[in-house]
């Protein structure tokens, strides 16, 4: 999927651990892992809201659109 979730980058910037984020946001480590690995199919606004609050950032800081190779050539 061309949408990348930059949770890792934001965690590094905020010097926060995954466990801490998990506790603050209230989602499981397994779900955070799905987000980080890009395996998620959708993200709820409520989750995005909680992540932005916990990481003190904008949705755009967490989500990035990276076109796939075929799309980029077009």
């Amino acid at each position: 999927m061309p949408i990348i979730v930059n949770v890792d980058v934001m965690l590094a910037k905020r010097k926060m651990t995954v466990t801490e984020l998990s506790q603050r946001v209230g989602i499981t480590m397994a779900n955070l892992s799905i987000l980080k690995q890009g395996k998620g199919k959708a993200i709820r606004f409520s989750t995005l809201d909680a992540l932005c609050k916990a990481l003190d950032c904008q949705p755009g800081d967490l989500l990035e659109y990276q076109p796939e190779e075929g799309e980029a050539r077009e």
Partner: protein
Amino acid sequence: MSSSVQGPIRLAHIITRFVYFLLILVWAVLFAIFLAQILFGLPETWSFSIDLPLKLDIAQPGVLSVGSEQYPVEISAVRGKVAMQDPPSFFIWMPALITLFCIVLAIFALWCFKGFMGHMVAGEFFHQRASLRLRQTAGWVVLAWFIQTTFTFWVAVWVQNHVSFNDVTVHTSFSWDLAWLAVALFLWIVSRILDHGRDLEDEQKLTI
């Protein structure tokens, strides 16, 4: 899943299993009779008659009398079976083999359906194997229908060419029995719906 839904599903599962084992028993008994006939022959006291599943149009000419006038009429469109007393051995072997084979196909179909019902009882409505089992059931049903239909068609043609009756003109006609094909189509559609349900379930699971 609520118990009000679980109850009928459990009942359907039990019935499916019962019919499955009953069919195996029927097949075993028929096969034993078939085998005994090959090895020892039929007892002389047994009288076999073969019913050919055919739609017959028997056209018998007659006369309608109204007052002094007489009008030619014809009785037709009679549906029936051709019963054969002491038929040639070929006519015993062939339907017996086809019947045994169709029962085997029905057993396969029921085995697949039993697997599907097992998933339903376990609450795994959208399990990949549940929809697969349903599609397999549909496949076996279609195969059994095809073999049965082909056999009936062949018998119709054969009877048309070989059977004759005194003073009665017999027109055998072949009719498509599409009920089982409709059942198979319905099962296939349900399996596609379950596939779609599985996609939605996956999406739901991966929505964070």
